[in-house]
C-alpha cells in the first residue's frame, strides 16, 4: 500500500438535496500527476475539500501515507504537507500580493515586526518562478482574475508541500501561461517527488501532463486511477458524459451585410488604452485576444461606462453617444457585459439562483407599481436555467452552494435572459465542462445568427478560433492587429501569435 501517499475509499458526502459523493474512491501515487475529471457538479471540488479538511465526509476513509487520518479543519491538512489551490479565489483583496503570498509565514524583523522588505524579496522569487511580472506591493483587488489565479498558485508552491491539489488552476489562464506552469509542475514532481492532483476541463492539458486519471460522474467513480496511456480523448469523454463529444464547427458564413452597430474611433481611456479602433456589425462575433494584462476586460468596462473613455468617439447605430453607467448601457443601448470574475462582479453569492438569474430583467418584466413576483421571474428565466442544464436542487438554492461550473452557467444565463443587442462575453466557458461548453458555443453562434452582436474575450485559443468572425489582438492596452478568421486553427493561431509579439 505504500506506493500511495493519499487514498480515499468509499467516501460519501451529502448536502441538503444533493448527494455530492457516492462511494467515491481515489488513490494518489507518489510523485505522479493525477487528473480528477468530471462534469460540472460531479463532485471534484467536494473531494478536494474533503482532502483538505474543509468538509468532512459522511462516511468512508481518508488515508494519508498509509495511515487513516481525520482532518477537522484546513490547518490539519497543512500539517500533513497538503497544500491546495481552490477553484474559487481565496486571496485577501485588501492585502498586497506579497502579504498574501507570505501570509502563512510572515518574515519578521529582529524586533518581531513584519519585515516588508523581506516579504517583497521572497514573494518576488515565487512570482518569478511563474514568470509573473507583478510588483509585490500591488493590491490584490487591482489584479485581473488570471493574475490572481497565478498568485494563488505561487502561494501554494511557496509552501513546498508534498501533496499539491490544484482545482482548475488553469481555468483563467491562456495557453502560454499554462505552459510555464506545467513545466514547473513536471519539474517538482521529478525532482522533489511532489504528488499532484489536477482538476481541469481542458483535456489537452490532461493528456499533456497527467499520469493517472480518475473520473467522477454524479459523485460516483466512472473510472479509478486509470493509466492515461490506456485512454484517448474519445474514451475519456465517454467516461465523463456518457456519450460522444460533439464538436461545434462554426457554419457561419461571413456576413456580407455591413450593418455597423457599434464603432469605436481613436478611443483613449482613463485606464491607459490608446488608439482603439473597432467596428462591430450586426450578427457579428468579434474576438479580443491577448495575454493576461492586455487590457481587454478593462476596455470593455470603459465601453459600458464603468470606467471613463477620455477621448475619441463611440458610435452606436450611427449616432455618437456617451455611455456613463452600466445601467444606461443596459437600458438605453442594450449592451450587456458578462464578467469574467463571477464571484466578485457577476453573482450575488448570498442570494439564490432565481434572484441572480433575474437581476437583469426585473425592470423589463415589472407590471404596474413595479410588481414583480417569483412566478413572473421563473417564467422568464427558467428556460435559460434549464437550457444550460444548471445542476441545482431548486431555484431557491443559494449560489454559493452551487459547484463552480454551475455558478458560471448562472452568470451567463442572467445575460441571456436580458436579451441585449450587443453582448460582451468575457471568458464565458471558464470552468465549464465540455458538454456544456459545446452547448454554450452553439448558443453563442445561434445568438449571433439571430441578430445579436457579440464581443468575445477568451484566453482559450481553440474557442476563439471556432467562434469569432474576426480576431483583434491586443497587447499592453493597444490593438496590435486584426486577424480575419477562417477557422483554420494552425494558420490563424500562428498569425495571432505573430501579432502578440510585434
Amino acid at each position: 500500500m505504500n506506493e500511495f501517499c493519499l487514498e480515499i475509499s468509499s467516501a460519501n458526502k451529502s448536502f441538503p438535496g444533493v448527494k455530492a459523493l457516492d462511494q467515491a474512491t481515489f488513490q494518489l501515487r507518489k510523485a505522479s500527476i493525477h487528473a480528477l475529471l468530471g462534469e460540472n457538479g460531479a463532485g471534484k471540488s467536494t473531494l478536494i475539500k474533503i482532502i483538505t479538511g474543509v468538509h468532512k465526509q459522511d462516511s468512508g476513509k481518508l488515508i494519508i501515507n498509509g495511515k487513516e487520518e481525520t482532518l477537522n479543519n484546513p490547518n490539519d491538512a497543512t500539517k500533513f504537507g497538503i497544500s491546495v489551490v481552490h477553484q474559487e479565489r481565496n486571496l485577501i483583496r485588501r492585502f498586497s500580493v506579497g502579504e498574501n503570498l507570505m501570509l502563512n509565514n510572515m518574515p519578521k524583523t529582529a524586533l518581531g515586526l513584519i519585515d516588508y522588505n523581506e516579504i517583497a524579496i521572497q514573494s518576488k522569487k515565487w512570482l518569478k518562478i511563474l514568470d509573473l511580472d507583478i510588483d509585490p506591493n500591488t493590491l490584490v483587488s487591482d489584479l485581473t482574475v488570471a493574475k490572481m489565479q497565478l498568485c494563488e498558485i505561487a502561494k501554494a508552491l511557496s509552501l513546498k508541500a508534498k501533496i499539491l491539489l490544484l482545482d482548475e488552476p488553469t481555468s483563467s489562464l491562456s495557453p502560454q501561461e499554462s505552459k510555464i506552469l506545467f513545466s514547473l509542475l513536471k519539474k517538482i514532481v521529478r525532482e522533489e517527488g511532489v504528488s499532484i492532483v489536477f482538476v481541469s476541463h481542458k483535456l489537452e492539458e490532461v493528456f499533456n501532463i497527467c499520469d493517472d486519471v480518475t473520473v467522477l460522474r454524479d459523485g460516483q467513480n466512472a473510472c479509478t486511477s486509470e493509466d492515461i496511456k490506456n485512454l484517448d480523448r474519445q474514451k475519456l469523454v465517454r467516461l465523463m458524459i456518457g456519450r460522444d463529444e460533439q464538436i461545434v464547427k462554426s457554419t457561419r458564413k461571413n456576413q456580407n451585410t455591413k450593418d455597423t452597430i457599434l464603432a469605436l474611433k481613436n478611443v483613449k481611456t482613463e485606464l491607459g488604452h490608446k488608439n482603439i479602433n473597432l467596428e462591430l456589425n450586426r450578427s457579428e462575433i468579434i474576438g479580443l485576444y491577448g495575454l493576461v494584462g492586455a487590457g481587454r476586460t478593462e476596455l470593455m468596462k470603459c465601453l459600458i461606462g464603468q470606467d471613463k473613455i477620455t477621448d475619441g468617439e463611440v458610435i452606436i447605430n450611427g449616432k455618437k453617444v456617451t455611455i456613463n453607467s452600466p445601467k444606461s448601457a443596459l437600458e438605453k443601448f442594450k449592451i450587456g457585459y458578462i464578467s469574467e470574475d463571477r464571484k466578485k462582479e457577476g453573482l450575488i453569492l448570498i442570494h439564490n439562483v432565481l434572484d441572480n438569474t433575474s437581476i437583469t430583467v426585473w425592470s423589463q418584466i415589472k407590471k404596474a407599481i413595479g410588481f414583480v413576483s417569483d412566478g413572473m421571474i421563473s417564467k422568464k428565466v427558467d428556460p435559460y436555467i434549464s437550457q444550460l442544464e444548471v445542476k441545482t436542487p431548486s431555484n431557491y438554492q443559494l449560489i454559493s452552494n452551487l459547484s463552480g461550473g454551475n455558478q458560471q452557467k448562472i452568470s451567463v444565463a442572467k445575460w441571456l435572459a436580458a436579451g441585449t443587442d450587443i453582448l460582451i462575453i468575457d471568458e464565458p466557458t471558464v470552468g465549464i465542462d465540455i458538454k456544456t461548453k459545446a452547448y454554450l458555443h452553439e448558443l453563442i453562434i445561434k445568438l449571433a445568427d439571430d441578430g445579436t452582436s457579440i464581443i468575445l474575450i477568451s484566453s482559450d485559443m481553440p474557442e476563439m478560433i471556432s467562434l469569432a468572425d474576426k480576431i483583434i489582438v491586443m497587447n499592453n492596452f493597444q490593438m496590435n492587429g486584426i486577424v480575419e478568421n477562417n477557422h483554420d486553427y494552425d494558420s490563424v493561431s500562428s498569425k495571432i501569435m505573430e501579432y502578440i509579439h510585434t
Partner: protein
Amino acid sequence: MNKKIPNFIYTNQFGLLCLVLIFTLIFSTSTDGFTSRFNIFALSRVIAIDIMIGLAMMVVILTGGLNLALGAIGVCAAMFGGWCMEVLGIPIIPSILLMLGMGSFLGWINGIITVKTGVHSFVVTLATMSIYFGFMTMLTEAEAFRRLPELFTDFGSAKLFNKYVSPLLLVSVATCFALFYLFRFTDIGRKLIAAGANPEAAELSGISVNRMFIYCHMLSGFLGALAAILLTTRIGAAIPSMAGQLGMDWLLPAFLAPVIGGTLLSGGKLSVFGTMLGAVLVTLLTNGLYLLDVGEFWIRFFLGIILLLAVLLDRTREYFTLKSVIVS
C-alpha cells in the same frame, strides 16, 4: 429575503415567536400587572414605536451601513411638525406629510454624503446626528410644542379592540406589510437588496447602486419621521428631548430589532417580520423586567447583553450563509 420558506419551523422568525410566547408566559405568571388591560395597551403603544424605529434602521443596515442620525431625524421631524401645526396652523394631514417629507429629506442628505464621499455611513451619520440636532435646538430654542391639535393627540390615546390595543400598533403592522411587499414583490425592492448584497455585481448588472443607497437612506428618514409622528401623538407634544440627548435613546432599540430579527449586518439580507418580532421581544423583556422591579440600570445592562448576543448571532449567521464562500 425569506423566499419560499422551506420549513417555517427552522426559520429565525419561528424561534423569535417561541421566545415571545415563552416570555409572555413567564411574565404573566410571575408578575401581577402584565396581562392587565392597562399594561397591554401601554405595551402596544411602545411596541408600535419600537417596530417603526427598528424598520428605519433595518433599511440602512440593508446597505451594509448604519444610521446613527435616526433619532435626531425623528426629533427634527417631530419638532418641525409641531411648529407647522402649532405656530403655522397647518391642518393635520398636510403637517404629517410635511413631517414625512422632512424625514426623507434629512435621510436624503445622509445618503448623498455617504455616496459622494465614499465614507462609511457610520461616520457620516455620526456627524449629521450632531448637526441635525444642533440645528433643531437652535431653531426651536429647545422649546417644546405642547398645544397640538386635539384630533392629532387623540389618536395616540385611542383604544381599540375592547380597549386593549392602540391604533399606533396598526400603523406599524401595516408598515411592515408595506415594506414586505416592497422588498419581495417590486423591482425596486429587489434592486435595493441586490445593491446591498454585492454592490459591484449589482452595478454591472445595470443597477444604479448609488441611487439605491440614497433611496435606502431616504426610506430610513421617512420611517424615522413616521416613528416620531407616532411618538408625538403618544406623548401629546413635540419635545426636543423626546428621544434623549441627540436622539440617542432610539439607537439601542433600533439596532436590537433588526439584528435579532435576522437582518445581516454586512447587508444584502433582511427580514421585515423578523424585525417586527425582534421589537416585540425587546419591548416585552423591558416591560416584564420593569414589572419585576428590576432596576433601570439592570434593564439597560440586559439590553446591552442581548445586543451583544444578537451581534454574535449575526456573525454565525453570516458564517453559515457564506460558509462555502469563506472557505472555498
